[in-house]
């Protein structure tokens, strides 16, 4: 049996809270946040999945289950296999999972990015601050309730703002984005419709 499936079976045997996750390619498991570090540690030490390739946050927005999930992908340089580990954040308003920086120092930046984009806090992270947006940015861009065009914000450099009298504006979407809602197979539902955030430089954003 390939090492990935072996590992998953072993983990499920050791921790009852580890369950299978639907996946189209690699073996994947769901782990609740309290057991996450133990499971990842076991994957790293016992099953030789020594490289952490990716940490991503996912915002499910309108599902009944927990809103945020943190998905880890680990890779074994020996057997060349991936395993996906997904941990749901218990609290929707203040999502939190333990930080994997103790196991892999490379997790540092990935977790900062997940914090920057989603607002997921990683307890135990040595230096959790924004990495892609500037430090004082007040929003979490990849959340589903944040519009693609952005929200008007003041730029961090006060001198430049005073000189240029500009700030971060909501990008003019010109009636777009025109995109069909994902997952709709009904033709009339699937017609691309302008999403609510559409506004142009001539027609201001309607008050929602």
């Amino acid at each position: 049996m390939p090492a990935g499936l072996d590992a998953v079976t072993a983990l499920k045997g050791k921790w009852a809270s580890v369950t299978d996750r639907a996946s189209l390619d690699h073996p994947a498991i769901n782990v609740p946040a309290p057991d996450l570090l133990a499971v990842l540690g076991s994957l790293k030490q016992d099953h030789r999945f020594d490289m952490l390739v990716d940490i991503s946050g996912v915002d499910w927005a309108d599902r009944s289950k927990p809103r945020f999930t943190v998905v880890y992908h680990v890779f074994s340089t020996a057997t060349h296999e991936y395993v996906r580990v997904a941990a749901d954040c218990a609290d929707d308003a203040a999502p939190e999972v333990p930080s994997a920086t103790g196991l892999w120092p490379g997790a540092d930046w990935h977790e900062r990015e997940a914090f920057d984009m989603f607002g997921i806090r990683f307890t135990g992270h040595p230096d959790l601050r924004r990495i892609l947006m500037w430090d004082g940015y007040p929003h979490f861009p990849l959340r589903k309730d944040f519009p693609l065009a952005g929200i008007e914000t003041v730029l961090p450099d006060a001198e430049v703002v005073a000189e240029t009298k500009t700030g971060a504006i909501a990008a003019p979407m010109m009636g777009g984005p025109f995109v069909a809602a994902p997952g709709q197979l009904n033709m009339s539902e699937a017609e691309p419709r302008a999403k609510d955030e559409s506004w142009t430089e001539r027609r201001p954003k309607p008050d929602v």
Partner: protein
Amino acid sequence: MPAEYAFPDSAAKTAHGEFETEKMSLSMGPSHPSTHGVLRIQMELDGEVVTKADPVVGYLHRGDEKIAENMTYNQFVPYTDRLDYLAPLANNMAYAIAVERLAKLEVPPRCQAIRVITAEMARISAHLLGLGAFGIDVGAWTVFLYSFTEREKLYKLFEELTGARFTTSYTRIGGVARDVPEGWTGRVDAFCEQFLPLLEEILNLLTRNRIFVDRAAGVGVISKEDAIAYGLTGPNLRACGVPLDLRKDKPYSGYEQYEFDVAVGTKGDGYDRYLVRGEEMRQSVRIIRQAIAKFPGGAWYAEDAKRIIAPPKSKVLTSMEELIQNFMIVTEGPLMPAGEVYFEAENPKGALGFYIVSKGGGVPWRLKIRAPSFCNLSILPKVCVGAMVSDVVSILGSLDFVMGECDR
């Protein structure tokens, strides 16, 4: 090469006989000739030696992942071009294969061969620029100009195939945009033939150059364990001695049919990274030639994937069924099943990964781009400590990252 520097005692001692020093804070970038794009490194210096380095990225964060949630899969292809903008065709291919994994779609052999040829040409192009930039950083202008001459020849070939010099947007989900033009593979072969001796000439400028060796050898040494712990991939990882190459270890798009070697270094310093990239270019030429020799006939897109790839225009404009198919694919996007996939391809900079969460339909729910340069840069705080400021420049050049990818 950095050695133990003994500061002359007499010069530094104050009247009280004590050595007074002060740490200086220096911000290198974001607009800097040697930071390869918009990278800012906030450094703390003790004289010329770096005691703390904190890279600040995000100056090129354009919101690609949010944009992906609002675009159909085919509409997102131009954004993948601009990730690693030195090798756009390789990014296009990685993205297309990732989405095709969602649909469990296998493209025909001709399409795979075209993708392999273009990806390897993109690899040559990216490494040439990486070497050129590294050369400029340590003071060698000629390498840059020579390598750009070769890249212009590659640009001409790309333009013939795709219509654009770079930022090609060539792949589609389920195939490529168009077939290769008449005689194109012959011209690629001719390019390869004249390229190999010129490559030796370019590398000769640096490989045994005393100044270059002094600036690159022993600088920025990364150990194997560190490289794996920080998630380094690509030539940076192979230079440390880890023989991981996704083309050989997890072959995709027909790479298993081609014979090529994987360049692996020993010491993990800047000089090894340079040598690994040079060797990779030679191996790329080898792969391209094999692919051209075996170039299969047939379709360049998956003809039976009706709801994924648009049929050719001649059929669209004459037949009703193809018209409807084209309409659905353009408006709604290629119809993908619900599920999650993660796919990594061996890009010139490292392993470019796409994690796609789909709820069905033509638009992804979440698209995470795992950028090799993001992970390669995360090792900077460790590697720069103890190096001098000019060594930092050399380390940046040897790590060869691209900010478009790092920040997305």
